[in-house]
């Protein structure tokens, strides 16, 4: 299938999600369940997208594993986004010379 078709569907759905409530809806969401669901969803999705994909992200599970642990430890100490990400890559790159 053409990549352009994929991109069109991607962009179309994403725009509709943004525009429909922003332009049309005026009511406030009252349901505690829905509010909780929408609050947790980004974390759940990011986690499900990260694991196990991160272990295959460098083409070598050992370097990826070292990078993953590096990222988790640095994120635990609340380092900036970019520092965590670059350190994970640097760790994976460094270990790449040993395996």
């Amino acid at each position, binding site marked *: *299938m053409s990549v352009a*078709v*994929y*991109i069109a*569907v*991607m*962009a179309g*759905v*994403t725009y509709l*999600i*943004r*525009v429909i*409530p*922003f*332009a049309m809806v*005026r009511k406030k*969401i009252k349901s*505690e*369940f829905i*509010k*909780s*669901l*929408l609050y*947790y*969803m*980004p*974390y*759940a*999705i*990011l*986690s*499900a*997208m*990260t*694991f*196990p*994909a*991160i272990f295959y*992200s*460098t*083409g*070598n599970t050992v370097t990826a594993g070292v*990078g*993953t642990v590096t*990222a*988790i430890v*640095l*994120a*635990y100490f*609340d*380092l900036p*986004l*970019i520092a*965590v*990400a670059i350190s*994970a*890559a640097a760790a*994976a*790159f460094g270990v*790449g010379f040993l395996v």
Partner: protein
Amino acid sequence: MKVKSNFLSGVISGIPVGLGYLSVSFAFGIMAVRSGLTSFQAVIISLTNLTSAGQVGGVDIIAAGGSLLEMAAVQFMINLRYSLMGLSLSQNLDSSFTLPHRLAAAYGITDEIFALCSTHKEPIKPAYMYGTIFIAASGWVGGTLIGAAAGEVLPPSVTASLGIVIYGMFIAIFIPPSVKHKSIFFVVISAALLSIALRIFLPSISVGFSVIICGLISSVAGAVIFPKTEEEES
């Protein structure tokens, strides 16, 4: 004059967002090229979607040759939060924010622009929101282009390591709140374990649907076990 100054103040308050986007989209650009897309395709995706997780999910599906239904479902699921943000923003718009302006500005509803606009002191004017979107989207598209170009010229050993960057950023987003809130910790751990288990025991399920299933089950479980109350939100 007034319109111009509103636009400018939007641009100025959006500069940190634009700089942040530059680095995240750099990682996206590399990831997209590694998944077999061209720089041009990566840039068009960033220009038309303006969202990180949704684009990564989308590129995964393109790379795996998934169905369009899967693409639509994944985008819906990953980006659903923008509906809530749009809903929230719609409550605090200036009267000059007419329907055509709403249709245009909806393009730029992202986590960070929502944060900027929802903490804005006065009702949001269209020019202000356009300013924030302009600078944020410039950073997003520019970073994608630089990342994709770098992905095409850097040696494979370097780009292979850089493949982990976007996931490192995701980890930096969901680990700190997991340390602070046991509810988020629960949601993050269960989504990760479910996702790993699905890959091992049901490898025939595509990546996109796996993200939907795991994301939905663990956020429903979180909402049932740890419902958010109004006090916690503030």
